């Protein structure tokens, strides 16, 4: 058994006696084997505290003590620790003592009557204390850590049915041999089935070399192995990690702490889980249950595997027992990102569909556009052809009108000429009535001549090409008015010109013609008023010029304001005011060809104002 124990220097330093302890506070003493830094103790502590805190109760205090026999071996350590604990806890009340693992339990039971005669004990151990001890004094309860060597080896042999040799790694330092002893007991039954070799107390290098070159059909059972001493001591899982890298056979083991460092798997016990279990027992005792009334239970063990090692040794997950827990499973890319992959794929699909749709749509639109373009082109061709035909027809008509007007003049000359000759040379042979007839013939032919001239002018306007010249509006208006003034010198018309200068691009002939016709009109219709007056003005607007000719003549009814610009439309008889009814039509046509406008405003008896609207940049309008 455990021969020597060592006093833990890291224990709580203040003496219990001097501590100010509230009356209802419960005290729990933890008695660990080994120091506080070993992984098993840390896990157990974590689990224990978590279990204690699972139901809030602040009135308990935990005191930790460590036997630490690995680092302080020696025969008298046992007595030293005994003295230490006795002095430290003398006079204090410990409500429960937790001891783990077996060496601690053994130490405690040995000194219980002297140290803590009234404290119930909760233990975690491999070895079950005999019933008389369990019932003695304030009672003992706890959990038994069943050895899982056999179960684990059974598992390994099932997974590797052709196994011929089993190598058991355990040993150093001295105390660890306990584990080998247990292992030997456990595994002795297998000696007939497989050859079992104990790799005990081998130095690290040798251990690594040995495990790296094991014969075929071997497996390793990793029990316990710590190396070195003091500060540089390698923990058991660290040793495992070192040999597992190069091991030529799969490694099985029983420590949950070792899963993840190279174990394939095994029935493992978990110190943290044990800690939680123990905490439940402690709380029951603190709440009043007698320890001896709580049956001793088995510590939970789990069948655990390292997924990476399963892969390494080619073991299928399907072969594992149903209750297996597989840890460190590396999810496949699919498993890891399934949702995201699906999402991205869906997105991609949607996007692709969308792009395809857009491409198809674009193609369709392109086709439609092409069809439309073709139609447009055809339409334009047809329009162009028809326009050309129309233009030709129109020119033909104009030419026809022009030649008709022309040819009409020739006989007119005969009528006029001979009626004059008759009047001059044969006057004596005519009576008054005959002379009157001849005068009528003469004046009619004059009228007709004027009509033909106006018609010719009108049709010439159509035939003539429109010019786009730079025109100074002021001088042009003034010169046209001056000329009219001279022509009308015999009349008493008062001409008033008030025009603002300004230059435009327009057809000067059309402009002159329009203005002249307006003036002719004004002269004609002021003939019969007492103080005839004609005003000519202009005004510059944003894009155009406005020119007007205002008279104080007879005026007209506004209901005729548009009609007077139509060809052959007259408001008076030719006896009242002679005229062909073409003059204003010429004006309107000339202005329209320049992109301008012509209109008039009047009231009967109030005179009339005739307007020209000329764009500054006139464009030919067909």
């Amino acid at each position, binding site marked *: 058994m455990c021969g020597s124990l060592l006093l833990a220097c890291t224990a709580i330093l203040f003496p219990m006696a001097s501590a100010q302890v509230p009356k209802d506070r419960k005290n729990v003493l933890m008695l660990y084997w080994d120091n506080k830094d070993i992984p098993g103790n840390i896990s157990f502590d974590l689990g224990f505290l978590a279990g204690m805190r699972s139901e809030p109760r602040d009135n308990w205090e935990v005191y930790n003590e460590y036997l630490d026999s690995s680092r302080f071996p020696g025969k008298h350590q046992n007595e030293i620790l005994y003295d230490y604990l006795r002095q430290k806890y003398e006079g204090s009340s410990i409500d429960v003592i937790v001891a783990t693992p077996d060496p601690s339990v053994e130490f405690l039971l040995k000194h219980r009557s002297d140290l803590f005669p009234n404290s119930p004990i909760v233990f975690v151990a491999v070895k079950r204390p005999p019933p008389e001890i369990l019932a003695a004094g304030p009672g003992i309860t706890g959990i038994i850590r069943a050895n899982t060597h056999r179960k684990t080896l059974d598992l390994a042999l099932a997974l590797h049915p052709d196994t011929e040799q089993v190598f058991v790694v355990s040993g150093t330092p001295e105390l660890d041999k306990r584990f080998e002893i247990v292992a030997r007991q456990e595994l002795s039954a297998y000696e007939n089935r497989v050859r079992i070799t104990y790799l005990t107390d081998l130095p690290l290098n040798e251990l690594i070399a040995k495990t790296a070159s094991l014969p075929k059909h071997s497996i390793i059972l990793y029990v316990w192995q710590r190396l070195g001493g003091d500060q540089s001591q390698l923990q058991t899982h660290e040793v495992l990690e070192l040999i597992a890298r190069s091991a030529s056979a799969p490694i099985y083991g029983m420590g949950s702490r070792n899963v993840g460092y190279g174990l394939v798997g095994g029935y493992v016990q978990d110190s943290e889980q044990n800690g939680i279990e123990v905490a439940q027992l402690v709380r029951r005792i603190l709440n009043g249950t007698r320890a001896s009334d709580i049956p001793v239970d088995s510590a939970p063990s789990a069948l655990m595997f390292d997924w990476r090692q399963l892969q390494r040794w080619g073991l299928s997950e399907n072969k594992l027992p149903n209750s297996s827990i597989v840890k460190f499973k590396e999810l496949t890319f699919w498993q890891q990102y399934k949702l995201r992959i699906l999402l991205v794929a869906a997105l991609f699909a949607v996007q692709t569909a969308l792009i395809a749709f857009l491409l198809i749509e674009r193609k369709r639109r392109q086709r439609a556009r092409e069809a439309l373009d073709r139609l447009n082109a055809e339409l334009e061709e047809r329009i162009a052809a028809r326009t050309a035909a129309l233009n030709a027809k129109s020119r033909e008509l104009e030419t026809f009108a*022009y030649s008709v007007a*022309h*040819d009409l*003049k*020739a*006989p*007119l*000359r*005969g009528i*006029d*000429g*001979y009626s*004059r*000759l008759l009047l001059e040379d044969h006057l004596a042979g005519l009576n008054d009535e005959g002379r009157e007839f001849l005068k009528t013939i003469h004046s009619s*032919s*004059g009228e007709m*001549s004027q009509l*033909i001239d106006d018609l*010719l002018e009108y049709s*010439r306007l159509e035939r*003539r090409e429109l010019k786009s010249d730079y025109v100074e509006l002021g001088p042009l208006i003034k010169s046209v008015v001056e000329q009219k003034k001279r022509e009308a010198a015999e009349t008493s018309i008062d001409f008033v010109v008030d025009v603002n200068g300004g230059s435009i691009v327009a057809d000067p002939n059309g402009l002159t013609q329009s203005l002249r016709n307006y003036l002719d009109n004004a002269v004609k219709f002021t003939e019969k008023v007492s103080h005839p007056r004609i005003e000519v003005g202009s005004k510059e607007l944003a894009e155009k010029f406005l020119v007007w000719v205002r008279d104080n003549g007879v005026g007209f009814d506004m209901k005729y304001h548009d009609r007077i610009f139509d060809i052959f439309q007259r408001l008076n008889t030719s006896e009242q005011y002679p005229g062909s009814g073409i003059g204003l039509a010429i004006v309107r046509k000339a202005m329209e060809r320049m992109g301008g406008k012509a209109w008039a405003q009047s009231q009967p008896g109030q005179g009339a104002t005739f307007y020209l609207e000329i764009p500054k940049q006139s464009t030919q309008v067909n």
Partner: protein
Amino acid sequence: MNEEPSPILIVEDRLSDLDLTKRAFARRRILNPILEARDGEEALAYIGKWEAGERRPVCILLDLGLPKISGLEVLRQYKSRPISSTIPVIVLTTSADDQDIAEAYKLGCNSYIVKPVEFDNFMEVASHIEVYWCALNTAPR
């Protein structure tokens, strides 16, 4: 002047116009004898006569709207033949068409006059023609 003045050739299809022109000249006491041609063919026939030694006119009054051969064609031929190319040709026509005017000048007419309708004005034109082309103007011999 003992010598009879050179004739004036009037190319005119319209009898009334021809008659009126002659009367107008007579009223203005124009003594030049009047030669007549009633269509394009007759007008061109004079070229042969002149080449044969007949007396050439002092000027030609040429109408444009002629039967058979157009006035412009007659003008072109007159101006392209040496015997007639130096005779002043006065186009006297009803047409005031810009194209006709331009074409006539291009072919070498010496004057272009639109026939007035009114008799008085016509008289005046005839008078001006006589004064200008028969009296003032010196044509090559």
